[in-house]
């Protein structure tokens, strides 16, 4: 099969899945669970195919699919370069794990879970693959529309209220997105991202200001999606209100904002242009600081996970702002690890919630206020060796690994990614600048705070609240978690080859000429 045709498959397959689901009717029926898992698995296969074909095709290979075969600056194109392909694969893996998890019972909590879930992945794949600014908006709306439905999945007052805020904030952000796109179109006369990159270099002085204003407004829209301070306030409530498999998939939604910023800033403003970098850097620092404090003050596991997403959003913003290929490669490594680990944490939280007695969550909160009951008599038999049932042992191990991944401690991939980012930041300049030190401090201190919070939560859950008989763990629910963590562990083992690929990706990203050329030569002769 032609390389370019693979680029549209990640969008087609979930689209067929949505249509099939709507045609076969009742989404709550058990009969179609297997079918939906098969669709998700097929998306993973296609994503693997896409990544493999692009990597095998050479260093600067870019798969371009002109929809309807219209000539390039006018028609809409799908562009799969290495970054897009890797993000698609990451989404597919996370979506597969979340879907398998949801197939245990969560899909029955409301209507049309599966079609909405697949529709969300259409939007995600499309946003990563599109090479057209307005189409980016359309795919954003597809993924947001599906996510509105999914936030509400399960219903109830505690979901509807955060969903209302979430929708209102995102509608305003969409308006900003349109204003930004319109300003960029008004000054450059094109919507194709490669064409914008070409035209923006030759913009006259009179249009430059308007163009940059457009880019800045667009940037604000992306920052809302990315959950940057001070535009993040909808995020913790919405994410912790969503049902766990949905929240797990949402872990990648903030990364769409990061992706869009990285894509547009490297493509349009390119090397040597520091438009908005300082602002992004400061926002990144504030986001990471706010997220770390939020992590520290979270007593419930779902809020902790939401704030962890804000911490990783801050880390990624800092890395985009650093604008250095080495740092970008580290950030790509980090984005994979952080997304998978955050997804796994959201899923794990559900198993823990099911296992804990209802008052345990309250206990975890009240412990903070009233102090530990230290004077409790300890049974002699219990003191020697309470048998930890296998289920509890398994999930506590998973929790520990996620904590290490999130805090960036050795030996796992979280440490490697932070190490790559920091060492590249120091390599980038001969003498480390103030920015480098801020960057280092933010990474290390946030890691420490995350570790403290994770350990404290772990102690609260596994030592003080765990029921005697342990937690019953369903196989369908623990499998995807182990899978996600397993991928993170494998990334630690194969860090060398993966980093080589990511380094090439970052290099391609920071010298976008190959991307632009590929888009412009994509017209194919059908005659």
């Amino acid at each position, binding site marked *: 099969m032609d390389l370019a045709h693979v680029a549209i498959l990640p969008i087609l397959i979930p689209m067929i899945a949505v249509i099939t689901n709507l045609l076969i009717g009742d989404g709550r029926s058990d009969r179609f669970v297997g079918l939906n898992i098969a669709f998700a698995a097929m998306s993973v296969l296609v994503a693997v195919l896409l990544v493999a074909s692009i990597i095998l095709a050479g260093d600067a290979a870019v798969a371009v699919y002109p929809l309807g075969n219209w000539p390039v600056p006018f028609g809409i194109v799908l562009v799969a370069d290495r970054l897009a392909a890797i993000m698609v694969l990451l989404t597919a893996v996370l979506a597969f794990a979340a879907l398998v998890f949801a197939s245990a019972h969560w899909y029955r909590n409301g209507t049309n879970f599966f079609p909405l879930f697949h529709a969300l992945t259409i939007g995600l794949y499309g946003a990563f693959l599109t090479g057209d600014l*307005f189409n980016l908006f*359309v795919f954003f*709306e597809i993924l*947001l*529309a599906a996510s*509105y439905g999914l936030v*509400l999945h399960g219903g*109830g*007052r505690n979901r*509807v*209220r955060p*969903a*209302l*805020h979430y*929708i*209102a904030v995102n*509608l*305003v952000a*969409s*308006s900003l997105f*349109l*204003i930004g*796109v*319109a*300003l960029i*179109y*008004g000054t450059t006369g094109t*919507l194709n991202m490669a064409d914008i990159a070409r035209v923006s270099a030759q913009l006259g002085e009179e249009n430059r200001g308007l163009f940059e204003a457009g880019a800045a407004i667009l940037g604000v829209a992306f920052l809302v999606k990315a959950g940057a301070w001070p535009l993040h306030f909808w995020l913790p409530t919405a994410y912790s209100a969503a049902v766990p498999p949905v929240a797990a998939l949402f872990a990648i939604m903030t990364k769409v904002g990061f992706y869009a910023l990285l894509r547009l800033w490297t493509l349009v403003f390119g090397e040597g242009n520091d438009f908005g970098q300082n602002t992004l850097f400061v926002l990144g620092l504030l986001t990471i600081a706010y997220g770390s404090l939020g992590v520290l003050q979270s007593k419930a596991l779902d809020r902790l996970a939401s704030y962890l997403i804000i911490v990783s959003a801050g880390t990624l913003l800092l890395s985009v702002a650093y604008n250095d290929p080495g740092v970008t490669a580290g950030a790509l490594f980090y984005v994979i690890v952080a997304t998978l680990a955050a997804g796994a944490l959201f899923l794990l939280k559900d198993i823990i919630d099911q296992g804990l007695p209802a008052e345990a969550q309250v206990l975890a909160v009240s412990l903070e206020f009233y102090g530990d009951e230290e004077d409790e008599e300890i049974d002699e038999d219990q003191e020697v060796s309470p048998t930890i049932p296998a289920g509890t042992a398994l999930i506590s191990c998973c929790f520990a690994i996620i904590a290490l991944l999130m805090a960036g401690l050795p030996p796992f991939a979280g440490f490697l990614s932070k190490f790559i980012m920091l060492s590249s930041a120091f390599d980038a300049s001969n003498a480390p600048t103030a920015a480098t030190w801020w960057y280092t401090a933010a990474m290390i201190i946030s890691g420490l705070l995350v570790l403290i919070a994770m350990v404290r939560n772990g102690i609260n859950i596994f030592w003080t609240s765990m029921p005697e008989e342990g937690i019953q763990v369903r196989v369908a629910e623990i499998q995807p978690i182990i899978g996600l963590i397993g991928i993170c562990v494998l990334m630690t083992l194969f860090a060398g080859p993966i980093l080589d690929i990511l380094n090439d990706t970052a290099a391609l990203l920071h010298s976008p000429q190959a991307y632009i050329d590929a888009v412009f030569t994509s017209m194919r002769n059908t005659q």
Partner: protein
Amino acid sequence: MELTLAIAIGVLTASGTYLVLRPRTFQVIIGLSLISYGVNLFILSMGRLRTDAPPIITDKANIDPSQYADPVPQALVLTAIVIGFAMTALFLVVMLATRGLSGNDHVDGKGS
């Protein structure tokens, strides 16, 4: 014409922003609608303002681009309107659900 349009966009967006920041859900949804009208007009204006210039080319023999309006912003506005309506409708449903569940129309579901 430029001035009229600029004032219209400004007034729509400013009123919309004010309403979005109000505490009642009805005000928020009207504000969102006003903002989206303002944004749609803004997109249209980005194709440069022209009168009596159709965006569709009819005479294929001798095309003079200066005789025609830019069709792209019009296509964009069409898409933006459709998406905007759909999202507003969805927001309305959620708004009604909050109203039903919390018994009042405050955006935080509290107050009287």
